[in-house]
């Protein structure tokens, strides 16, 4: 009896252990639901056109599950109107699960026709593995600048594989009612920034700065990459890191962390356990005064906040300094090379490269700014404020995205951990600089 029991247990243990074995599908990657073919009335609506063959259905993979309504109500209908015979389905997954889920789907051959591209290496790897189609000859690709295309092109600059859709800009969103009530002016220098924070703290009605560090990325993305470009002079500093002429132990980086460390006193109580959606809701409820933001937050606050809000750009260290902003190439659209409807997918991508799409997209999603050369008229006042900084300041992208996050330890993930640690007060700015550089030195040989 005992022996039988022992064997059963051993088998059970093996079974449980096997759950950890990689080829088992991760629970976070739901199998793609087969796009339900919709024999809708598309041909009937267009009686004059030649009776279209079976309508083709395209599926878009995306991590922007926040945008599902906009795609379904505005973008897709506009496309379907001008392209009868093609149906489009937007099929997003959660942002944190997108990369893993997409990889699994591509390997299993169940991914959609159109793939929303993360910037730089994630998409580059997909292209190198042959999952993304080459788009050099796509009509409309010439309407994007080299900087716009830089995030979705091979290292030698020859092959483009995604159509740039939008960039996001960092800054601070503030509660205008709170500022008016306390008689505060928008800060332009770092000293003014902390004066404003002190004044809000003294008054006590509002939490001065609304952010949490529980998810870690906010600390890096809305903190470090938001205020940092002013210190490391945007592209100059970013390229210097890649060339190896600058190090994270240098003053600009340590100073950025030193300023972040000062945020601690102005954050809500228990910020260490506050997650990103909690911080969003807290600010949207009007309980906070200033919110370190990505421009994508505009949509959320337009929906949820009942007060007037606006934005200011990251304050410069000293009055009169040249300002720099993080204008990060964030999102693009590529084509699954194994798509069963390549012609229809191409037609959609060509449409994405038109000013018509740029206009709909930028206005439907204030906070995602088109990367097209053509000027687009923005209607949202806060989005207009964000994009106006492009004319006053020099733009750069997040310094960990190009090349520097290829190795192990991964620089972007290290910046999350270190920036959150600095704000939590468990790591000093100097230590953060040392650890980031030590991690990079492990694998990176400057070019």
């Amino acid at each position, binding site marked *: 009896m005992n022996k039988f029991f022992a064997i059963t247990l051993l088998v059970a243990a093996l079974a449980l252990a096997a759950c950890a074995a990689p080829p088992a599908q991760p629970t976070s990657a739901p199998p793609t639901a087969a796009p339900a073919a919709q024999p809708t009335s598309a041909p009937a609506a267009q009686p004059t056109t030649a009776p279209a063959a079976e309508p083709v259905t395209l599926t878009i993979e995306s991590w922007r599950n926040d945008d599902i309504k906009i795609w379904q109500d505005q973008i897709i209908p506009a496309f379907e109107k001008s392209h009868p015979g093609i149906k489009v389905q937007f099929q997003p997954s959660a942002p944190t699960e997108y990369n893993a889920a997409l990889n699994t789907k591509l390997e299993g051959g169940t991914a959609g026709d159109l793939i929303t591209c993360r910037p730089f290496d994630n998409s580059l790897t997909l292209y190198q593995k042959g999952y993304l189609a080459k788009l050099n000859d796509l009509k409309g690709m010439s309407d994007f600048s080299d900087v716009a295309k830089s995030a979705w092109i091979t290292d030698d600059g020859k092959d483009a594989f995604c159509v740039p859709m939008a960039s996001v800009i960092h800054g601070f969103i503030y509660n205008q009612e709170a500022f008016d009530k306390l008689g505060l002016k928008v800060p332009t220098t770092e000293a003014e920034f902390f004066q404003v924070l002190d004044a809000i703290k003294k008054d006590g009605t509002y939490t001065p700065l609304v952010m949490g560090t529980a998810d870690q990325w906010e600390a890096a993305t809305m903190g470090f990459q938001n205020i940092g470009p002013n210190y490391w002079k945007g592209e100059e500093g970013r390229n210097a890191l890649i060339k190896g002429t600058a190090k994270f132990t240098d003053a600009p980086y340590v100073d950025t962390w030193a300023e972040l460390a000062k945020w601690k006193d102005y954050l809500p109580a228990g910020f260490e356990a506050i997650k990103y959606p909690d911080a969003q809701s807290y600010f949207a409820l009007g309980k906070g005064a200033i919110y370190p933001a990505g421009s994508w937050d505009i949509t959320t606050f337009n929906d949820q906040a009942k007060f007037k809000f606006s934005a200011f750009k990251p304050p410069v260290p000293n009055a009169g300094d040249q300002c720099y902003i993080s204008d990060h190439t964030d999102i693009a659209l590529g084509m699954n090379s194994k798509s069963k409807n390549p012609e229809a997918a191409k037609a959609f991508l060509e449409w994405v490269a038109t000013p018509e799409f740029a206009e709909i997209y930028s206005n439907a999603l204030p906070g995602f700014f088109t990367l097209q050369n053509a000027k687009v008229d923005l209607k949202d006042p806060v989005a207009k404020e964000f994009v106006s900084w492009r004319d006053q300041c020099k733009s750069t992208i997040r310094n960990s995205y190009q090349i520097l996050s290829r190795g192990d330890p*991964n620089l972007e993930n290290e910046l999350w951990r270190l920036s959150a640690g600095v704000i939590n007060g468990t790591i000093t700015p100097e230590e953060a600089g040392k650890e980031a550089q030590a991690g990079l030195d492990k694998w990176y040989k400057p070019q």
Partner: protein
Amino acid sequence: MQTPNVHKSRSFPWHILVFLAPAVIVYTVFMIIPLIDSLRLSLYAITPDHQEVFNGLNNYVVLLTDPRWSAAFQNAFWNNVKFFIVHMVVQNSIGLLLASLLVAGGRARSVYRTLIFAPTVLSVVIIGFIWNLILSPLWGVGEGILKAVGLGALFAPWLGLASSALTTLSLISVWQFIGIPMLLFYVALLGIPEELMEAARVDGAGGWTAFWRIKFPLILPTVGIVAILTFVGNFNAFDLIYTVKGAQAGPQFATDIMGTFFYRTFFGSQLQLGNPAMGATVAGMMLFIILAGVAVYLFFWQRRIATYDL
């Protein structure tokens, strides 16, 4: 009519194969093959142009000796040990206590039994979400409850602090799974014949003595089973940490356990690309750790303890 005697020459026992087949096939396809393939992959390296190259035990050497990998591995391992210790100490002893109380009787016994077991059948995602809300420093009821009993000053953002995050998560997991050891102990205690207890009482044993001298030795086999189930479950744990803290298991990897370490390595996270070979190596180490635990159970515990036929 003459019936042909088909059983004269014993034919091949097909029925055994037929009955075994479903389990063997399903288990082989979904468990054994992936497990072996995972172990195979852990012996390979993946080149920049995505070719698999045989690499011997190199991955294991790197994982255990390369400072960068071994630091992460050891951190995950020791966190996992802590996770296990909290479960052993808190979950299993309280589980035993609850089981003893249930056996002692009382009219609401079945109500309690059901209530205490209820969280076990809930989805981990829901558990993680609920506790995140309860403990939220912004709108959690946790702080309010503590204040109501005059302990408001004790409240801290436990899930966010490196010092308390892992313990908090362990306790959440204990809260969820306490029903399992409770039920196992409950069943074992129910199996002890009443005559034994009567005899003990006649011999003058009080409740305390009777429990430790009679009941506990009799349920020792169950204690072993609970311990090994906890061990295997804990070293395979992943979902709660991933749900509450994400793949980066923050702050400062304070809540990183083998499961999240494996996930991050194999699938990657954010800009970090997945490394299937090293991921398989981590999975291999998890398997060996679990096998070692099971071996200790089988060869030491099982052989040492006396079992009694009741």
